[in-house]
């Protein structure tokens, strides 16, 4: 049977394959097609994205401490941890979710004020022409999903424009630094950003050549971290770097 020109049947089979109700010979035939059929693989990926979150509807439960202890032992995690401590590139990412006291110290605008600024920004953007295809944009939000800054990348002019949606009050001896974060965990500094208003920075070629999944802003000593490949302070806001 040929299912390539039967999109409805493809949908039905992919959905029931992921749900688990596609059985026996029909399942085996489907798996054979799946090995060589790229669009069918994409359909299965989509259905996994649709249905797997159903798992989160079950009641959360705390596993016993023994599970983690067994993992530590089996994977020799303590040794790995010691080895990593020598070049601790990740300590900063690891700690960021625990660094809640920082948020209180930042003296952020009230939620209401921030919302007014966001709506002002959004209404302003509506009258601007749409971004041309091939450009990039990221909305950087804080840990409460509050948008703080919008970064847009113009591939022709090789320019990044950073608009602070919510002005930040930071101590006089601190600076905000923008970073590109790669899938493999490497980071590169893009420069310092102002705590309010709009500033522009040069856009490096690598930001359009390869995927830069994430942009993040960290709080650094005045003048920046000093090492273009290693932030020293906590992440204050971040967001995905997306092609428009």
């Amino acid at each position, binding site marked *: 049977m040929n299912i390539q020109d039967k999109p409805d049947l493809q*949908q*039905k089979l992919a*959905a*029931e394959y992921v*749900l*688990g*109700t596609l*059985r026996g010979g029909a399942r085996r035939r489907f798996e054979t097609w799946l090995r060589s059929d790229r669009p069918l693989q994409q359909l299965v*990926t989509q259905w*996994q*994205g*649709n*249905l*797997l*979150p*159903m*798992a*989160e*509807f*079950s*009641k*959360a*439960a*705390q*596993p*016993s401490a*023994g*599970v*983690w202890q*067994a*993992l530590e032992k*089996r*994977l020799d*995690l*303590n040794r*790995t*941890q010691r080895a*990593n401590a020598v070049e601790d590139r*990740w*300590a900063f*990412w*690891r700690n960021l*979710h625990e660094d809640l006291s920082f948020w209180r110290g930042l003296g952020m605008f009230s939620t209401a004020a921030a919302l007014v600024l966001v709506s002002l920004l959004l209404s302003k953007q509506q009258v601007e022409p749409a971004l041309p295809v091939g450009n990039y944009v990221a909305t950087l939000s804080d*840990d409460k999903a509050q948008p703080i800054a919008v970064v847009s990348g113009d591939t022709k002019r090789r320019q990044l424009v950073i608009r602070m949606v919510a002005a930040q009050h930071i101590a006089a001896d601190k600076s905000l630094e923008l970073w590109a*974060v*790669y*899938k*493999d*965990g490497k980071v590169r500094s893009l420069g310092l950003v102002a705590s309010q208003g709009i500033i522009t920075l040069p856009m490096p070629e690598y930001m359009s050549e390869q*995927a830069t*999944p*994430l942009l993040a802003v960290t709080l650094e000593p005045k003048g920046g971290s000093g090492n273009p490949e290693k932030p020293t302070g906590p992440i204050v806001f*971040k*967001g*995905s770097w997306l092609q428009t």
Partner: protein
Amino acid sequence: MDTGQLHIWLAAVANKDAGAFRSLYDASSPKLFGFALRILSKRELAEEVLQESFVNIWNNAGSYQPSLAAPMTWMTTIVRNRAFDLLRRLDHDVEIDADNFDMEVMNALEANDPTPIESLQLTQDAKALARCFARLEGLHRQAMALAFYHDLSHSEVAEQMKLPMGTVKTWIRRGLDKLRTCLSKLESA
């Protein structure tokens, strides 16, 4: 649960960062363990599956592709496959409870307004699914959940629900169709 944060931890786990692995485990294990527990109904079996799954996550984080699946979707797939493997080895000899969803989620799905769904502790993907699930009939939802959670065929779901198999087949097919339409509307909105 913040998907961006899970991404960052997974990227670090790919670099064999034990600290990030711990953070990832702490953030995701209650949901993943809760899910395994619904499938296997016994704590020791669910813990065995959770442990095997995290060994798998540690070893395969490098091959995780963010463009293909959200972190929770990727990890849930691993847990579900492991749990079903064990379920088959046990010859499906475990209790099946029809109430697969948390009470709070059930109430939110039955509510007439979307507010309770928004306040649930779920990823954005799961909230989208909940919004669309809320528009399905309860029995259709239950048929889909039984198949999804317990590795049941159409006829096994029919047996559980004491309904003719044709009815169950139709409900599941229609439910999946409606979900797809609803989720793609949410995505383009």
